[in-house]
């Protein structure tokens, strides 16, 4: 009879202790895989969002509080729109795009909606170009492109392609190239609730607006909003030239630190924060979850290891006669070692695989409810979990294996 057949038959004959040990190991692996998968998916989502949003900086009124990037303009505090002009005039290195916003409630078709005033980038171009003479002077004096940065000229980007002129691109880029005073962009969900399509008209603040575009769904709060030209919203609402937030899209992460210092010096009455600071809480939570899962894995593996050791010890005690018989028939202590280790490895492997399956299912089922992001099972957690389970099972079987190898056949037969 081959050694693996011996192991298999032994496990089949005494399933209860094996299942108990297997469950203890599986539990540890399941905890590791599920929590690590949730943390990794959340981390990926944060990274993807940051990548989509670019190296963003938010300029907020000093008193404004903020928790969610997409609701950065919903705090109700305002600051003068002249700050936008100040940023343009400062020609700060790294400012590639800007998006000032004013958010106000309004009633449309007896429904309460949020109207967001946005400023098209063509407005920035106009003001930026008023400094043409100074810019030309600086560049002629420096004999080059002045304060430049790799892949950007360090100043408000004036590149415009057809894709940027497409109003629907606002859902993704959060920047609109041009917008007529009485044109509206409508969020996907709101358009469906109000039954609006491109080209429809809508009454807002007592004026007729044209629906210039229904935006594609973005999965954010923007899907519930109406967007109109900032100056029109200011004038019709009577709010005057104020904004709730100025989003600054920096050209790259490298310039963000310097840019924040520049903006803080330029606008001392504001709070300047980066998107990284905003997601810091989420990143911290992911890190905590990841560490907790490792701690939980370690504790459960200790429990699992103790359980495997107990099973193996009792197994060696219960099978003394059979082991003694094997040794009398010529089996070496090495063979008994291998028998015990093989059984332990099987327990570790099955426990690991069961743990991966259970952990993966838990992550897929409950992950989206916990962190509200699409889930994928962490491959590294699966590998570490399975390897850890086998190693723990082998380590905890060392003493039982040693005990089995030291059995004396003559003493074993005395029990008969």
């Amino acid at each position: 009879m081959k050694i693996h057949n011996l192991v298999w038959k032994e496990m089949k004959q005494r399933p209860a202790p094996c299942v108990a040990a297997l469950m203890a190991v599986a539990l540890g692996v399941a905890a590791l895989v599920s929590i690590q998968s949730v943390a990794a998916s959340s981390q990926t989502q944060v990274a993807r969002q940051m990548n989509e949003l670019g190296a963003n900086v938010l300029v907020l009124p000093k008193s404004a509080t903020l928790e969610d990037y997409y609701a950065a303009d919903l705090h109700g505090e305002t600051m003068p729109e002249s700050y936008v002009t100040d940023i343009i005039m400062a020609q700060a290195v790294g400012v590639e795009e800007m998006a000032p916003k004013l958010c106000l409630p309004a009633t449309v078709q007896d429904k309460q909606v949020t109207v967001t005033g946005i400023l098209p980038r063509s407005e920035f171009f106009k003001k930026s170009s008023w400094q043409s003479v100074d810019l030309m002077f600086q560049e002629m004096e420096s004999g080059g492109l002045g304060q430049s940065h790799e892949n950007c000229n360090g100043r408000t980007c004036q590149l415009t392609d057809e894709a940027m002129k497409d109003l629907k691109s606002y859902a993704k880029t959060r920047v609109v190239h041009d917008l007529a005073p009485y044109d509206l962009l409508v969020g996907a969900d709101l358009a469906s609730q109000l039954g609006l399509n491109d080209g429809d008209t809508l009454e807002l603040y007592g004026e007729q607006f044209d629906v210039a575009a229904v935006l594609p769904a973005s999965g954010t709060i923007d899907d519930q909003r109406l967007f109109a030209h900032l100056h029109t919203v200011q004038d019709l609402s009577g709010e005057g030239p104020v904004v709730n937030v100025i989003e600054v899209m920096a050209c790259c992460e490298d310039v963000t630190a310097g840019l924040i210092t520049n903006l803080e010096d330029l606008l001392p009455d504001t709070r300047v924060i980066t998107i990284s600071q905003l997601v810091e809480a989420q990143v911290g939570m992911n890190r905590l979850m990841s560490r907790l899962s490792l701690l939980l894995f370690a504790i459960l593996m200790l429990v699992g290891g103790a359980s495997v050791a107990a099973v193996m010890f009792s197994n060696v005690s219960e099978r003394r006669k059979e082991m003694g018989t094997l040794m009398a028939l010529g089996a070496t202590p090495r063979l008994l070692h291998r028998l015990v280790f093989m059984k332990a490895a099987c327990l570790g492997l099955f426990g690991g695989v069961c743990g991966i399956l259970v952990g993966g299912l838990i992550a897929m089922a409950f992950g989206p409810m916990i962190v509200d992001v699409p889930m994928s099972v962490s491959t590294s957690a699966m590998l570490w979990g399975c390897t850890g389970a086998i190693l723990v099972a082998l380590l905890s079987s060392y003493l039982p294996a040693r005990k089995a190898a030291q059995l004396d056949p003559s003493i074993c037969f005395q029990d008969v």
Partner: protein
Amino acid sequence: MKDRFTFSPCLAMLVALLAFQGGPASLQAADSSGVQQLETPAEDDQHTYFLFYRNNDQRTAAMEKTIERHVAAHADEAAFRKVNVFDKNEQEIVNMYDARRMSVPSVLCVAPNGAVTCVYNRAVSGEQLKRSLLTPKYADVVLALQEGKIAVVSLVRDAESEPLAAAEQFMDSGDFKDSATHVKVSADDASEEEFFTRVKVDRNIDAAKMILFAPPGRYLGTFDATTSFETIAQKVHASGSCSCEKCQEARGR
């Protein structure tokens, strides 16, 4: 009689106060709006400085003083108007330059061709104001940039001289013809002496030269007959200045 005697000094004081508030009569026409003043000096080839303000605070007074000194020194080239952003009669000029949304006090200079040659807020120096006085061709270059176009400046010996072949090819090319403006400047035009100084080109040129500027004020280079159109076009695309697909690719977008 008694009423007339008491009324007259009050009227005189009011007139004096209004005159003081409005600044020297030679610098600002009291009975016209900013837009009208903008139109008048343009006919005289004058630059117009607008000082937008809300209150007559220290900063406004300091800026006003600097501008007045500058305008007085360049009386034949410049005019000045102080505009309160809340003045109902001045809303046309306030809206034209969106002054309500600027930090004030702000000074903005408009060339006779309509190009904005400077904008400064809170403080301005005489040197900065001097830099904002442009020659006619320089103002054309700035206007082109403010219209979002690449300015192709051809520097030639005299009005009859031909610009570089590369400049003409540039203006005829499919990539640039709709996004560029050609400005020809003759070295023998005395009014453009300052322009040559600013672009660092000697007026005693034998052969034509070409300078490229891209919006909002990027200097792309000075070229002579040894540079081919292809090289210049490559340089423009590499700088990402004409917003075509080649520029987008060059900038990794």
